[in-house]
């Protein structure tokens, strides 16, 4: 069981979601985050003072997959989230030791 976390550009979410459902993934969890990185932020001006906002809005997708599906899922995310410009984001993978579906108590692969 692997947890894939991907930080992506917000407007890529729909494409990524579709790609993941196409390969049979039935669930994921998404949150709004702010990213700091090579992509530079933007300038804001309020009453003549300028400020640089270094954090850029990003979307974090968390999706837990069976080991079998992991590579295809990673492949799907990377290919769909890519625009080729700075700030496309990162993808991280962790091992999980346990997974439970709360409704039924099922665990392991059956929980997904």
């Amino acid at each position, binding site marked *: 069981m692997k947890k894939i976390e991907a930080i992506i550009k917000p*407007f890529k979410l*729909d494409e990524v979601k579709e790609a993941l459902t196409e390969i049979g993934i039935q669930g994921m969890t998404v949150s709004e985050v702010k990213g700091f990185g090579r992509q530079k932020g*933007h*300038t*804001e*001006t*309020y009453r003549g003072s*300028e400020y640089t906002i270094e954090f850029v809005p990003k979307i974090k997708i968390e999706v837990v997959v069976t080991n079998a599906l992991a590579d295809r899922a990673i492949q799907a995310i990377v290919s769909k989230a890519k625009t080729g410009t700075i700030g496309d984001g990162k993808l991280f993978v962790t091992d999980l030791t346990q997974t439970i579906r709360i409704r039924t108590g099922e665990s392991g692969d059956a929980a997904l």
Partner: protein
Amino acid sequence: MRKRWMTSGLTGVLLLLVALTFLPGHSQAQGEAVPPATIEAAGAETEMTAPVAEAAPAEEAAPAPPTIDSGDTAWLLTSSALVLAMTVPGLALFYGGMVRRKNVLSTMMYSFIALCLISIQWVLWGYSLAFGPDVSKIIGNLSYIGLSGVGQEPFGTVPHLAFMVFQLVFAVITLALITGAFAERMKFSAYIVVGLLWSTFVYDPLAHWVWGGGWLMSLGALDFAGGTVVHISSGVSALVCAVVLGKRIGHGKEHMPPHNLPLVLIGAGLLWFGWFGFNAGSALAANGLAASAFVATNTAAAAAALAWMFTEWAYRGKPTLLGAASGAVAGLVAITPAAGFVGPVSSILIGIGAGVFCYFAVFLKGKLGYDDSLDVFAVHGIGGTWGAIATGLFANPAVNPAGKGLFFGNPGQLVTQIIAVGATWVLAIVGTYIILKVVDAIVGLRATEEAERTGLDLSQHNESGYVL
């Protein structure tokens, strides 16, 4: 570079204004100095240009010098303030709440700058073009430039300046209404140029045609408070803008829900509130006709809101707040030309028509595929056209002797109304198209793709709406 250009531009404008202040002919001093004869002439002209002048029964018979009535003046000043509040904050909120979060400020800014720009344009030359002494029934001459000769003297029963500023806020909101069509994608700098040109070359002539002594006025077209001048003109121009600018990126694919519906409701509420000034203020007096227009306005708005809501409920399964609010605005639009000519029951019918027709116009937009971001054409273009025609149907001489529609035995009025509608459509389409093409060639109309994606707030104004 830009800096130097701007600075010298500003300096030039300043010098011009200073000159204008001290040129004897342009000083407001004139206001007081106008000889009685001129005042009477102005008075007579009032009767000609004021939208409801025809209602005055004894205009020839009474040569008493015009005097200012404090009650009428109180009402007209109040109405002017109300109409101003329709644009800012009213329309700014109505439109600002409907766009996506990233464009809330740029959308509000369109309305705010319409207020600022046209307030100056109208004082400097707009009023003169629209309401200055007539030239060939087409346009006003330049004798009121810088409000030269427009002072505290009576114009009907109110100070001339009060009439002027009441007309000013109409010019403001008309431009602001259009902005809903190109919200979320037009460059701010292009908007400023388009706005000035549009107001000067489309609005000012049209106001002259209908209210300022022009050919539609001579023809007897009825437009109590601006069905053609304000709503058809803005609605049809909006359609042209939507077509010329093209769709927003992601239109039809991405979900673009309103980001803040409570703001939309505040806006709709302020529009309704201010519309009493718009319509009942157009009586130019605090009298029975004003009260009648007030009631017609309220009734039509309510009927249209319910009509839209029930139509949507029937077709989509749920009544929505945005639907009810849109319906109310549609009803207010449709009753605008008719407000001073129809009774309360007719205004219910006009309202119901507005709610149903505009709902289906929005619906049709989906089929036709142009991207009028906030449905200006469906609400103001269609609603205004319906209202102008309905005026030709329902105008009741018992309400106002100046208007008699088909249902009261005067089919000719309907024909006149259709001519007025047609003329307005043509002027709006041709004028707007030319202006957009010229500005596109010189400045460029659309924000860049990246600017649009980031949102116009950051890309055009370096600001974010919220830090929540």
